């Protein structure tokens, strides 16, 4: 695993919904080494409050050396990040962590909830590189409402994936939760990739276990360094020992963590 620290120029910042932003930066070293499911640690400002870098999964990557990050403004760090302008400089460390295992087995099912959809866009694009026919795969996406979900759905449709949706308020797709959509497609898929709220992933992991379908999950925790030094990002592993999300993850097989 090789990571870089790069001063990155902001190429664009787009407001996707009232509190959701897509940030694109020039990060040629990180972009060239990035694998779907990996993340970056972003220093949102050169100041002591907020002090720590913020972890963001890699949402998009281009051969031109850009990285896309998708985030919701939830606190001090993300509010500062939402206020950057084109040309600003941001300090990034990455790519970090273990990403998704990309197997040729198909069809696959990609399941994302809310901001958890972010790394799945990069995954979906990368999966196409191995002569895949996206129309055979399944993409299930959920969010609070249409405003939040719609722009993200477009990314997958543009790649040729069929997308099913669910929203908490019923404003787009099914009124309800994403795992409800899984039952119908699970018998037909050989592999599931998911990222989203913890309760959603817990249900999906259990459904996959019962159906004996391989399931990879991307976890989110607080972390101070992203490098395996602070040991702050622990979650309980399936064997009773702690695992560190930054180095052993953030992508795990469902059976590797205790739910």
């Amino acid at each position, binding site marked *: *695993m*090789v*990571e*870089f*620290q790069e001063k990155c120029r902001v190429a664009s910042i787009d407001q996707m919904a009232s509190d959701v932003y897509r940030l694109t930066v020039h990060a040629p070293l990180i972009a060239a080494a990035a694998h779907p499911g990996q993340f970056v640690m972003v*220093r949102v400002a050169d100041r*002591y*409050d*907020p*002090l*720590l*870098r913020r972890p963001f999964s890699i949402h998009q990557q281009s051969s031109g050396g850009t990285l896309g990050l998708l985030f919701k403004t939830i606190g001090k760090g993300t509010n500062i990040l939402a206020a950057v302008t084109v040309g600003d400089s941001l300090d990034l*460390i990455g790519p970090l962590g273990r990403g998704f295992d990309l197997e040729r087995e198909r069809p696959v099912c990609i399941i994302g909830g809310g901001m958890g959809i972010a790394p799945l866009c990069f995954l979906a694009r990368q999966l196409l590189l191995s002569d895949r026919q996206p129309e055979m795969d399944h993409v299930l996406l959920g969010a609070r409402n249409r405003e939040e979900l719609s722009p993200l759905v477009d990314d997958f449709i543009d790649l040729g994936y069929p997308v099913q949706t669910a929203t908490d308020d019923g404003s787009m797709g099914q009124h309800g939760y994403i795992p409800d959509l899984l039952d119908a497609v699970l018998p037909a898929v050989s592999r599931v990739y998911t990222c989203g709220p913890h309760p959603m992933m817990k249900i999906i992991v259990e459904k996959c276990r019962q159906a004996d379908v391989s399931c990879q999950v991307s976890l989110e*925790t*607080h*972390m*101070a*360094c992203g*490098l*395996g*030094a*602070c*040991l*702050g*990002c*622990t*979650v*309980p592993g399936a064997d009773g*020992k*702690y695992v560190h999300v930054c180095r052993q993850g953030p992508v795990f097989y469902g059976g590797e963590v205790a739910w």
Partner: protein
Amino acid sequence: MVAASDTKELQVRIGSLTLRNPVMTASGTFGYGREFSNLVNLHRLGGIVVKGISLLPRPGNPPPRIVETACGMLNAIGLENVGVERFITEKMSFLKGLDTPVIVNILGDSVEEYGEIAHRLDGVEGISGLEVNISCPNVKKGGVAFGTVPEMAATVTGAVRQATRLPIIIKLSPNVTDIVLMARAVEEAGADGISLINTLIGMAIDTKTRKPRLANVIGGLSGPAIKPVALRMVWQVASAVSIPVIGIGGITTVDDAMEFLLAGATAIQVGTANFYEPSAPEQIIQGMKEYLHQQGEHCIRDIIGTLQTGI
């Protein structure tokens, strides 16, 4: 693997240990060194203090273990580490290849455990010194931290002194009434140096859920928020003992580092800053050379303890 070509202008000594410059990385913030090897030129550092090691592996505390606070962070990692045997077999092979002094931070539940770890590490190739974390609870004495009772701190220091020929640095806890009493006690018991401060005990609460933000409820505060407290304690200790003092606490910039040296520290450790700015130690080393030039001094040793308190 080219060793940094620092001239001797930044060289300092801690007991028998010579450091090419006064900038080390603090225990618990730099893993076992290797974690930072892609981002930091380890050969430029004055020293690397590795994650605290206990006799047996420790799993650490349940999550959440860290929380950010204003200009700082709280941690309750629970001293998670691989234990002394795995440290020697798994971590030393990388560390002994470095042309940088490696100082092993050790911790224990009992005086005997400190002595045993020190004995086990004595003579292991690639280890230049020990730093003794005495902020741990003494299980046999009802869980009172060794570092809060001068007699207990002295006993631990003496046990480690007996068990090893390596230079020993005692890392003091700031959670005491009189830091100078602690410093004098460990100096008399045979310490070669004193490092301070360890974290200040603190807590944070989520008012929505009414729950503590750390599963352990309380944790250690670190980062720029604690620097003034650390600087005051370093100044008090350096004024009271004759062994070298290593300053720790919120150091991020060369200006921070020079404050500690002026207050009497012979060397410094960069801690939490490694998390948010891994280049901080290298920037400080470079900045020290520039500081010497600006001040018209030739050698960092001439700066140490030159705080001008008169008017």
